[in-house]
């Protein structure tokens, strides 16, 4: 018998059968018992019926990715058994419903089989509560039963489970809460009574949380939405799309923060409405995924030429076209870099973990307003739908930078000049006044003495259409120069992050959420004696030339690692710096990189000099 420091557990079942809530119950039970959690969720583009699964990793130290093999597989239907039984660790356990699956359909001889008579137990609970007739309708309780049974195998204290299960239902349906707790208890006892003497070697118990530490458990869309609220976003538009809609729905669910959320007729409307709103001075944003982002680029170009701060969150999913609509890819980077016709300045950010989802939201609005540019934040399906425990956000230092946004009094003062060259005349204002740094003082719609024009055409300082070649040069120079200014002003640690020793055997370059699997793999490799350094590029445009070159010029083996077919970041690095990678790790199955496969690939690159490893893991 061995007490584990880390465990992986997987539950699968048809979509709509409660897999998410069981995973959440399992995760919260362990999270409240002091464990760090990472939960990875996979599902089809389907409402009900297709196979979905959720892997929960719990550890005494932070975890950031899923793994190939689990200690326990919990299920109550055949398909999950069929697909996932080969990914159970030797000596692990498989929980299944003996009325649906026969033990013969499990080919593993090296695991403990736990047939759990789900419906018998549910019928007993229903009878105890005088609801015999409703037993079949309560079948969804299987989820809670499977969680309780799994934790019983691990001898994890029942009170912890009861508390989580109760908190799940208590607010809405007190009686259902009692029934679920009772069901959990029966399943727990059933396993303790019938399977206590099996070979299953692992146990788990609550561990202490460091004094004063507060943790939250959430997914990426929730982190991003709260970041937006704190950033002052009070206008959000969206068109329904997986996996981005969750963010907008979160904002709409909290009207107490005053963010107007408009569901539009399409993403063209979404971006245009957000840009229109931003002209009034509100911090405005939209959230979408690749197909929607495709529709937004003309509107984004308009915000570029009109220097309107707008923030676009693109939760990347696997393309092209509809692609794998509920799966993950880092496939929109090169598109984001050049989306829209003509040259206009933009900033592209790529947050890689829950903290960055939250804090980058604030930076995104600050950059948008300071440089008066559209900001694209490349989030992704992986973190949008993954759940993780993290330390409570400390946002006491979150600062708002609105750039040269003018108050009413400032507009009038600048318009009249007051000793300096006037920026206006007769109540009108030179919104696009030429400035050395390219950034013009910014009135908003509705301010007295601030009247200006916007146009998608090239324009003069007041915003009137012009085709004058000299003004065209000055305006293009002005707008594009803002990127150089941004590049100089934005601190290095916002542009790139590095992890691991400087004298590493291998330097991995990545962006976005793939960071998680690499950091987890690095811990394993360190134990094997392979030293890895990670360069995470966080702001990809304007390209952090100096930071990337400094990091890569002396690297021993340079490895690109990203979730796409062609290596989009490494192509950009080569374009800007001329530096090519020595080897690459790609994955384009739509399933996020797992710790183990990244670890194995890096080991192969170091030891066997592999040049290209394509990862495949995940059902």
């Amino acid at each position, binding site marked *: 018998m061995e007490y584990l420091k880390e465990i992986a557990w997987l539950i699968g079942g048809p979509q709509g059968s409660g897999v998410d809530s069981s995973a959440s119950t399992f995760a919260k039970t362990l999270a409240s018992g002091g464990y760090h959690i990472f939960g990875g969720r996979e599902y089809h583009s389907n409402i009900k019926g297709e196979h979905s699964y959720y892997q929960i990793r719990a550890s005494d130290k932070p975890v950031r990715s899923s793994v190939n093999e689990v200690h326990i597989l919990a299920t109550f239907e055949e398909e999950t058994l069929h697909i996932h039984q080969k990914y159970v660790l030797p000596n692990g356990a498989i929980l299944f419903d003996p009325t649906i699956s026969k033990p013969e359909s499990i080919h593993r001889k090296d695991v403990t089989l736990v047939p759990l008579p789900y419906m018998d137990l549910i019928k007993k609970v229903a009878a105890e509560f005088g609801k015999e007739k409703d037993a079949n309708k309560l079948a969804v309780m299987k989820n809670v039963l499977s969680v309780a049974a799994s934790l019983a195998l691990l001898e994890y204290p029942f009170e912890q489970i009861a508390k989580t299960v109760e908190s799940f239902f208590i607010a809405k349906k007190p009686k259902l809460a009692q029934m679920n707790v009772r069901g959990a208890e029966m399943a727990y006892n059933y396993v303790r009574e019938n399977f206590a003497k099996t070979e299953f070697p692992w146990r788990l118990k609550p561990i202490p949380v460091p004094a004063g530490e507060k943790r939250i458990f959430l997914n990426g869309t929730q982190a991003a939405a709260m970041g937006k609220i704190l950033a002052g976003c009070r206008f959000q538009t969206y068109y329904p799309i997986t996996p981005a809609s969750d963010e907008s729905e979160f904002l709409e669910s909290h009207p107490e*923060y005053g963010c107007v959320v408009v569901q539009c007729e399409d993403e063209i*409307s979404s971006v245009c409405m957000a840009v229109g709103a931003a002209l*009034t*001075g509100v911090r405005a944003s939209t959230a979408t995924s690749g197909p929607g982002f495709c529709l937004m680029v003309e509107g984004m170009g308009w915000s570029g030429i009109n220097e309107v701060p707008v923030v676009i969150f693109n939760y990347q999913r696997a393309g092209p076209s509809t692609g794998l609509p509920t799966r993950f890819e880092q496939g929109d980077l090169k598109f984001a870099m050049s989306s829209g016709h003509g040259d206009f300045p933009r900033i592209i950010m790529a947050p890689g973990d829950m903290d960055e989802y939250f804090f980058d939201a604030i930076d995104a609005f600050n950059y948008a307003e300071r440089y008066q540019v559209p900001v694209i934040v490349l989030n992704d399906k992986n973190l949008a739908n993954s759940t993780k425990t993290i330390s409570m956000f400390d946002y006491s230092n979150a*600062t708002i930078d609105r750039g040269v946004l003018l108050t009413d009094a400032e507009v009038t003062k600048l318009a009249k000049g007051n000793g300096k060259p006037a920026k206006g005349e007769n109540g009108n204002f030179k919104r696009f006044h030429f400035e050395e740094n390219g950034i013009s003082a910014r009135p908003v719609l*509705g301010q007295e003495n601030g009247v200006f024009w916007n*146009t998608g055409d090239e324009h003069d300082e007041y915003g009137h259409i012009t085709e004058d070649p000299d003004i065209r040069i000055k305006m293009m120079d002005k707008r594009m120069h803002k990127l150089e200014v941004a590049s100089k002003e934005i601190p290095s640690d916002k542009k790139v992050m590095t992890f691991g020793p400087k004298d590493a055997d291998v330097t991995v370059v990545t962006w976005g959420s793939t960071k998680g699997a690499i950091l987890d793999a690095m811990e394993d490799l360190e134990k094997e004696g392979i030293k890895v350094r990670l360069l995470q590029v966080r702001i990809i445009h304007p390209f952090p030339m100096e930071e990337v070159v400094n990091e890569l010029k002396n690297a021993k083996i340079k490895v690109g690692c990203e979730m796409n077919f062609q290596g989009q970041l490494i192509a950009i690095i080569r374009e800007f710096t001329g530096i090519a990678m020595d080897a690459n790790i790609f994955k384009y199955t739509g399933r996020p990189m797992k710790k183990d496969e990244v670890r194995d690939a890096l080991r192969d690159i170091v030891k066997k000099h592999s040049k290209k490893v394509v990862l495949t893991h995940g059902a």
Partner: protein
Amino acid sequence: MALELKELKTDFRNDWCVGCGDFGILNSIHMAISALGKPRHEIVVASGIGCSGKTPHWINTYGVHTLHGRSLPFALGIKLANPELTVICVGGDGDGYGIGAAHFLNSGRRNVDVTYIVFNNGVYGLTKGQASPTLHRGEKPKSLPSPNINDNINPLAVALCSGYTFIARGYSYDVKQLKDLILKGINHKGMALIDVLQPCPTYNNLQTKEWYEGIEEDEETGVKTKKNPRVYKLEESGYDAVVKNPDNIEEVEHKMAQAFLKSQEWGDRIPTGVLYEISQPDYGARVAARMPAYAKTAPAKMPFYDLATKKANTDISPLLKDFQVV
């Protein structure tokens, strides 16, 4: 204090064709804004692309010349983010009923308090006279290589079915009536459509000023006389467009039915004026019903940080508490 017309004009060079119907609409907008009596910095004119798209540059208020077909989403975003602004949206028939049709439809069901004026001339003028969505089948203005193969959209009927709460038609050479319609549209609390028959003298040689007004030329003397004008005013025909009681389903149905019938009149008799008007909660009121703060403070003016320290000061701790596990 009413603005003088000259205060509402700009020095920006006008490049519309001589005799363009757009001038009448521009004058009507100037007159309506002047009569509105609001300071010009509280007014925004948004537009799409095409000849009509340039309109804001000749109006001395905030002007937002947007993308082809997208003037409505921009206008809606502006209005919802700062409801204190008067937002007028202008565009052509190709812009609004073709490339922007999805926005035209869906703006109806939102009923945002915006006035949408469509310069409807049956052709795409700025790209040299192709058929627009309002050109009838079989018609062949001079730039079409062959007669129009498509049927036409009836914007008034579409607006009626899409939830517009103020639907009117103007004629660009009746500047006074058009000014009244625009002013009514602005004062109407909700989404107003004013479709304006606007002859394009360069590319539409069918729906001309002469055609609309029934002007005939004496072949021998060249003298022009108005004989059988096609456009007529609904208000002079005893037509009552206004729903008195929006809760009275029978009355609503009746007023919608008569507006639909009027929208179908074309050819010898073409109605102008208000076809339909009803009072319904606008989008802002619907937002305020679920978010009371919206009624008091525009999102554009909502404070979210400390002006002295620049620290974000939205208290999100209640949200975070929901996610706390230890």
